[in-house]
């Protein structure tokens, strides 16, 4: 029996993971539990949407970079057209990314979107238009992040493949050139 098993991989960035989950969970929790404590819709709205917006910012700017090495944003170029940019770390760094981190990242991203959809269905059933507004805003923010990062991941894979083939091709051709020059 093999006792010398490698230790189970731990989270490489526990603090980032924590914050990544914190804002999502607190937005959902506040929305669900607030009806027990607060009568005022305004407070519920403002706090939930604020937490959701903070979560959006954290995921887009911090945990996306640190946990999965991806980033996306929008720029307006000189011609006045909008260009969506996707950025990723090079392949070695991506391969070194902690598996647990990226698992947590993607799963919580999808799960929170599903949770908001469920809450939205509840408020739809109860004909509460104002709560539906809250859910709508939070859902929009979540989905924006999901779409952005999924595109980023696909783009990253494509770019890495292209880059790899490009460098291999150039290396190959220059090797052949140098081989011929020697002859």
């Amino acid at each position, binding site marked *: 029996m093999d006792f010398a098993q490698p230790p189970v991989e731990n989270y490489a960035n526990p603090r*980032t993971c924590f914050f990544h989950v*914190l804002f999502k969970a607190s937005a959902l929790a506040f929305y669900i539990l607030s009806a027990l404590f607060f009568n005022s819709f305004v407070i519920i709205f403002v706090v939930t949407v604020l937490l959701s917006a903070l979560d959006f910012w*954290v995921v887009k700017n911090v945990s996306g970079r640190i946990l999965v090495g991806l980033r996306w944003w929008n720029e307006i*170029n*000189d011609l006045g057209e909008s260009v969506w*940019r996707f950025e990723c*770390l090079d392949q070695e760094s991506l391969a070194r990314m902690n598996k647990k981190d990226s698992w947590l990242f993607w799963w919580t991203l999808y799960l929170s979107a599903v949770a908001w959809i469920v809450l939205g269905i509840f408020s739809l059933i109860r004909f509460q238009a104002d709560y539906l507004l809250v859910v709508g805003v939070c859902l929009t923010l979540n989905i924006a992040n999901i779409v952005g990062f999924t595109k980023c991941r696909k*783009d990253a894979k494509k770019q890495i493949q292209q880059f790899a083939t490009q460098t291999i091709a150039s290396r190959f051709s220059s090797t052949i050139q140098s081989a011929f020059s020697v002859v």
Partner: protein
Amino acid sequence: MSNSHSDTIPLHPSSQSDIDEIENLINASVQSGPATVLPARPPSPPRASIPVSSTPFIQSQIPPPPPQSSSSNQKVPSVPAAPPPPSVGNSSSIAATGFGPAPNTLTEPVWDTVKRDLSRIVSNLKLVVFPNPYREDPGKALRDWDLWGPFFFIVFLGLTLSWSASVKKSEVFAVAFALLAAGAVILTLNVLLLGGHIIFFQSLSLLGYCLFPLDIGALICMLKDNVVVKMVVVSVTLAWSSWAAYPFMSSAVNPRRKALALYPVFLMYVSVGFLIIAIN
């Protein structure tokens, strides 16, 4: 292969795309002849949080960089911060589109990101609401659009209106928020349907920033409850908001359709103005 070196290249945020540098280094390493080196770029300062394992090859290409104070700032802000750990690797990033100057923001400290976003909000606000030479050009006017400013202004306006209201506070807030958000979207669609050339998010961002004068008006009206004062303040801020939105909207459409594009904007701000006056 320089791929293994590539993740140790520190880059200045204003330097050209990393893919350029990587390709140059690869070309330089492979060719024995004179390497095709791109024209001089600003030297790349190291990022203090990420260890740079130097190789003689890299050092010969890039002159010793001066330390940069912002990247050596390890301050942990109250907002979530995790200094990028060494395992993440360094500043190599592959921009998916084009070779334009891609700011290397993938490994910057979190505090830098926060500062950058905050300063962007302030500069956008100054661009939109205060006179400046670039107002006529929609392409330049709000190049770095962001939705944080509009978000804060809309929420602030809703909160102010809700505070001033003595009854039905929640409804007032919800109505104000929905009106402003939906209004901005519809106004943008209006311009697009008129055959104008604007970018959706840029226009949303602009219309949100133009709410700033109305925010001030609402705040003053909340503090001073005199009807005459309210009317004067609201008309002044209304004129200011419309003046702020005018150049951007009008230059986006065909000159014959200017009025069609501007009228709904004015209408929306007038209705918000009435909301401010009517609340007591």
